[in-house]
């Protein structure tokens, strides 16, 4: 690097630092004050407020500042912006799909050493897939709060009206398709579908389990492997739901009203999602509903959805922050959050307790989430994964709405995503 370039880079660094210095003082100025940033609906906020309240009664020497961002998308942007400004909250919730991007820049304090020395938490108390999802370069970086997975939500009223049996564990791709076809109806005879058998967002994270179920895989360390016959056949099967069978809304229908909204309004029989929508359904759905596992093909598989409590590397209150994370991930802490319905607890003891499995609270068969754990697959931990996911989803949507053949769309996804596998190496 020439002297000129060095001087240039240093000047720019100084300018950036100058601007950063103009930011408000981080909320971590005192050693006993811990800021804690979360996302979630009002019910979740209430649970986090209770969590903080109970923690403070046990640890009056630590002050917790709860920062709540309602939407997940806004939360992700706020999180990235806070880290960029050098002022993240001490404790933050991070999804494992975004972990590598922060971990590779050493923005997070590895929590493995804290966990090893903890008297309250033990690694064996957690479900392994959840813990492993936050394992980066030989260390547990964050401690998982939940272990959700992709399942089938179904409207029991619509199944009963059609005289159909509820989905059962072990159902096959053929069963799934036949059920969705039988429940797709033009109820007023005007030629337009009024009730869809299935609702799904055409995204990479939705098609992924079906690729695994068909014996395929998503990626190697060098790039996506969506061009294999197994992967292509699975994506084709997924795309055919729209292009051939019309059991899911078309693009104009989805643009007019999302699949999630259609399901909430009782006009879609089955809907694929993680545990995320349970609080909304409990509050808004006016019909009987429950959950079932995904269908299976040559293999049984579903996708891990997990968030974890992470500690910012720049935190000035690391010990106090760990004390809070320890409490939030204790049986008491996870029980409080599990009662919102939003999470599948990552602690086995809480997940297997009435706090999560209570059959009087919907969904009656929350056990489905636990039964799926042995069949959980996770997405690769790659720093550029968010970009890879966005590119692949865009290409998948092209095929899903009939604008391109599956093979062409997947080749394009593989090509466009390739640079992100070597980025940051």
């Amino acid at each position, binding site marked *: 690097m020439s002297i000129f370039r060095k001087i240039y880079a240093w000047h720019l*660094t100084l300018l950036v630092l100058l601007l950063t210095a103009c930011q408000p003082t981080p909320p971590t100025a005192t050693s006993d004050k811990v800021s804690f940033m979360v996302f979630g609906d009002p019910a979740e906020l209430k649970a986090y407020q209770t969590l903080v309240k109970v923690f403070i009664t046990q640890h009056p020497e630590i002050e917790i500042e709860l920062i709540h961002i309602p939407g997940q998308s806004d939360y992700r942007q706020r999180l990235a*912006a806070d880290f*960029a400004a050098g002022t993240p909250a001490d404790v933050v919730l991070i999804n494992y799909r975004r972990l590598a991007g922060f971990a590779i820049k050493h923005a997070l304090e590895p929590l493995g050493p804290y966990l090893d020395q903890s008297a309250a938490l033990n690694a064996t108390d957690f479900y392994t897939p959840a813990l492993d999802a936050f394992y980066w370069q030989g260390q547990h970086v964050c401690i998982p709060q939940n272990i959700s997975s992709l399942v089938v939500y179904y409207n029991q009223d619509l199944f009963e009206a059609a005289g159909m049996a509820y989905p059962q564990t072990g159902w096959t791709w053929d069963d799934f398709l036949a059920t969705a076809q039988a429940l797709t109806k033009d109820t007023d005879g005007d030629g337009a579908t009024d009730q869809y058998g299935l609702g799904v967002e055409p995204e990479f994270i939705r098609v992924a389990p079906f690729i695994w179920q068909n014996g395929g895989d998503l990626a190697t360390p060098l790039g996506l492997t969506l061009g294999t016959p197994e992967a292509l056949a699975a994506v084709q099967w997924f795309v055919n739901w729209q292009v051939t069978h019309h059991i899911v809304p078309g*693009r*104009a229908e989805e643009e007019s009203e999302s699949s999630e909204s259609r399901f909430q309004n009782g006009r879609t029989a089955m809907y694929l999602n993680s545990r995320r929508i349970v609080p909304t359904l409990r509050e808004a759905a006016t019909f009987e509903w429950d959950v079932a596992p995904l269908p299976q093909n040559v293999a049984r598989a579903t996708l891990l959805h997990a968030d974890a409590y992470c500690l910012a590397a720049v935190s000035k209150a690391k010990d106090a922050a760990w004390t809070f994370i320890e409490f939030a991930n204790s049986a008491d802490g996870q029980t409080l959050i599990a009662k919102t319905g939003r999470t599948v607890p990552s602690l086995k003891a809480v997940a297997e307790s009435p706090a999560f499995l209570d059959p009087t609270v919907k969904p009656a068969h929350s056990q489905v989430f636990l039964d799926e754990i042995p069949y959980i697959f996770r997405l690769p931990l790659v720093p550029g994964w968010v970009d890879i996911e966005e590119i692949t989803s865009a290409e998948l949507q092209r095929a899903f709405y009939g604008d391109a053949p599956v093979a062409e769309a997947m080749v394009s996804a593989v090509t466009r995503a390739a640079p992100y596998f070597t980025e940051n190496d």
Partner: protein
Amino acid sequence: MIKRVRALPYRTELGLMLVPYLLGVAGLIGLPALLSVGMAFVFYDALSPPTWAGLANFREILTDPTDPLFKIALANSLYFVALAVPLRTLGALGLALWLNRQRRGVGLYRAAVYLPTVIPDVAYALIWLWIFNPLYGPVNLTLNALNLPTPGWLADGDTAKLVFVIMALFQIGEGFVVLLAGLQNIPPEYYASAAVDGANRWQILRHLTLPLLAPWLLLLTVRDVILSFQTTFTANFIMTGGGPYYATLFLPMEIYNEAFDAFRFGPGAAMMLLMFALTAALIGVMFSFLNDWREADEH
């Protein structure tokens, strides 16, 4: 005894009054803009210090075959500017000509033209999202009632960009007011002379009104070119996020995605610089056309 303070010169007083604004502009616009120029030549992800990149960011966005998004966004923005700027200028001109003369209720009509301009961007985007809803929106319900084809609008890559142009056509209040002021600055004696000479309405428009309005039209067009490159962001972000399949990915959205979503500030800043250069070039072309036109007119 009251000490008399010597009054500062008038221009100095004015200058002092401007100081807070100049400081604000320098600190909030000038400095970040300079920083952005610098960022175009470094790799910077906000989590680690910047490193020198030279022209690599420009090479990446212009020539990398695996990342066509800048070129797509550039083409989309040019499409938008090419359609929206002339249509908005013509719309503002037509309405200004129509509503120039004092008559009953003209104030109400003028207010109606200006009204969509003051609607906050987010509300404006949400209104159009409903208007062009493919199943439940009033546009398609009307077309359906008339047994006409119902496009997918924002759900269809072919029509989605057009929606943004249509939306832009209703926010022409400022241009309308500027041209109305321009029209009212033309001395009525000119029209009286033209009438004495027997000029018809078209001849008056072509040889009198338009040449006299030319500086105003130029100002408006230059302003609109600059604005049209930049103002798609809010609607873009709320209504489509750039889809379907990048059909509505305009430059501001792509720059935002690159810089503030993916945290690749280098390529984001490089895109911003190119957009700036393109805007300047377009304005340069317009001035050059205007000069040619003036020279031709003088001969």
